[in-house]
Each structure stands twice: as structure tokens, then as C-alpha cells.
């Protein structure tokens, strides 16, 4: 059986959606675990009060703050999930590259933290927009971030720059060379199809600490 480019792209898209959904659900479970402990503690304290054991009011205040903080955290996770799910609504739209990178960085924050990677997205003087498919653009940014995370030295931050270069809108990754998989870093067939679909191209210089993605149209 030969796999067509369309099938490869579909596999890549579903794979990306799965990775992000799994990460979000794990993050959500962690918040639920904290909320669960908080309500359990509230129950323990209520039993103490019933038995006539004094409970310091500060303890209840701390508990209430923790509940509020984690409800807010859960709300943030769900908002991101909702926004991500709507990424596939339009086949093509004007997308602010800086905003898209920032969003993918937020979506993947848990995974980057787990690997000890620190991304710093540099500010841009003016918005850099591309007309493209938002979902697959996020997919490409995600793949790039994973690639540089594997190939660069994680002792220092990986900087991300978004600019309108002479060769078109660009996302540039720069960090310290020397990651575990620097010499093995190359594009997979799925990534090649993804680039083709977005009309983008990649310059891999991971052994010297960099990688750039150029988009054809503004």
C-alpha cells in the first residue's frame, strides 16, 4: 500500500491533535488532583470542627485561595483547549505569526518544562501576518519546537524571533548547539508534506544552533 501526501498530512494532523490533547488532559488531571485534595482537606477540617477541635481561620483562608487559584488555572487550560479546537475552523485565514507561536508555546509548556527546555519568544516591532491554515501552522510550529528542543543544548534558553525577512515572513529559532540529537535532526516525510501544504520551507542549521522557517505569502 502506498501512502499519498494527503494521507500523510491527515496522519500528521491527527497525531498533532492527539499529542496536544493528551498533554492538556494530563495538565487538567493535575489541577483536578489539587482540587480533590483541597475538598478532601475541607472535609477533614469540617470533621475537626464537629469534634470541637479549633481550626485556625488562616488555614481556611489559605484553602479558599488555593481553590480559587486552581479554578482559574483549570479555566485557562479549558480556554486554551477550546481555542486550539477551533484552530481548524477555517481552511485559510490571516494569522499573526507571533501570536501563533506564543499560543503553541503555551499549549506545550508542560511538555517543554518536563524536558527542561526554556523558550523565550522575542517581541516584534510590528505584526507579521501570513494567510494560511491556522491548524497546520500551529502543527508546524509545534514540530519545530520539538526539533530544536531535541537538537539544542537545554542549559540555556532557546530564543524565537518572528520577523518579515527579505525572503518572506520568518520564524527563527536560536540557541546553544550541542543537544543530544543535533546530528540526527532532519525533516520527516510528514514534516515535508506539512511544509508543502503551508507553502513554507525550513533551513536547518541545528548543529550551529539555529533553524528558520520561511513562509511564501503575506
Amino acid at each position, binding site marked *: 500500500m502506498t501512502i499519498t501526501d494527503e494521507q500523510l498530512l491527515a496522519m500528521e494532523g491527527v497525531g498533532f491533535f492527539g499529542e496536544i490533547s493528551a498533554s492538556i*488532559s494530563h495538565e487538567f488531571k493535575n489541577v483536578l*488532583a489539587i482540587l480533590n485534595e483541597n475538598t*478532601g*482537606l475541607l472535609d477533614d477540617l469540617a470533621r475537626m470542627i464537629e469534634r470541637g477541635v479549633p481550626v485556625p481561620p488562616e488555614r481556611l483562608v489559605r484553602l479558599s485561595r488555593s481553590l480559587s487559584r486552581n479554578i482559574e488555572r483549570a479555566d485557562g487550560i479549558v480556554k486554551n483547549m477550546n481555542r486550539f479546537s477551533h484552530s481548524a475552523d477555517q481552511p485559510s485565514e490571516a494569522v499573526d505569526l507571533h501570536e501563533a507561536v506564543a499560543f503553541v508555546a503555551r499549549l506545550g509548556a508542560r511538555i517543554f*518544562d518536563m524536558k527542561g527546555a526554556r523558550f523565550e519568544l522575542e517581541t516584534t516591532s510590528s505584526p507579521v501576518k501570513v494567510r494560511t491554515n491556522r491548524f497546520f501552522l500551529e502543527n508546524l510550529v509545534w514540530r519545530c519546537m520539538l526539533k530544536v528542543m531535541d537538537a539544542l543544548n537545554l542549559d540555556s534558553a532557546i530564543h524565537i524571533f518572528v520577523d518579515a525577512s527579505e525572503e518572506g515572513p520568518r520564524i527563527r529559532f536560536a540557541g546553544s548547539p550541542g543537544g543530544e540529537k543535533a546530528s540526527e535532526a532532519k525533516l520527516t516525510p510528514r514534516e515535508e508534506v506539512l511544509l508543502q501544504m503551508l507553502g513554507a520551507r525550513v533551513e536547518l542549521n541545528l548543529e550551529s544552533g539555529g533553524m528558520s522557517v520561511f513562509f511564501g505569502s503575506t
Partner: protein
Amino acid sequence: MTEKVLLVDDEEEFLEIMAERMRARDIDVTTTTSAQEAIKMIDNNMYDAVVMDFMMPEINGLEALKTIREKNPETQIILLTGYATIDKGVEAIKAGAYDFIEKPADLDELSEKIKQAHHKKTVIVDKRDKEMVLNMLRKFGF
């Protein structure tokens, strides 16, 4: 008898509250947010059970589990998993975990598992000590 437990999770708030609730149930609990640190703590302390998150930064729960088992086979390990399916839990048991429990965990259920883990550790240590004494007696011709 009080169970001595090492609780490991990278969510500090979770650790703090769960430890407070465990202490209220007379469990002697120590906490750390790092699996690497937990491995070091095992060298200098004897715990009845290690309750550890499956997904940790630096080193994953399964790797940490194997290292702890090598260093201290008597200590029983209970993994906390955020996975909705039991596959990872089964994988952990195959790798030597005493048990696993899905997050969010029910503390009564976890406390029961800790008691059982403590009992298992006591049986293993007793058996090992008896064998050691018997070997010594045999060595001296008894």
C-alpha cells in the same frame, strides 16, 4: 505502627495538601518535587512506601521506579497516574511497582494501599532477616 512514606510529585501545592492530610491520618510523610532527589533520599532513609507521580520532569516515573527498586528492593512503590486507561499502571506493576492509583486519588483508598504496602515490606524484611540468621547458624554448624 506508623507507615513511613516518601511522597513525590512536581506539583508543589498537591504535595503540600496531600502530605497535610496524610499526617492527619498518622502517616509519617516526607515530600519532594524531584524524582532525582527522591532517588538520593532513598540512599539515606528507609521508607515503607514511595508514592510517586508517573510523569515527572528530568526522569519519568518508570525509570525512577526501576532505580529505586534496584537500590532498595524492600521499599514498595505506588504510582500516581494521570492516564485514563490502565495500560500504564499495568506496565508499572510489571516493572516492579506494588500498585498504582489514578489521579485524582481517593486518600482513603491510597491510605489502604500504603498500609498493605507496609505489610508487604514487613513480610519481605522479616523473611530476609530469618534467612540471614539461618545462614549464619548453618555456617557455624547448627
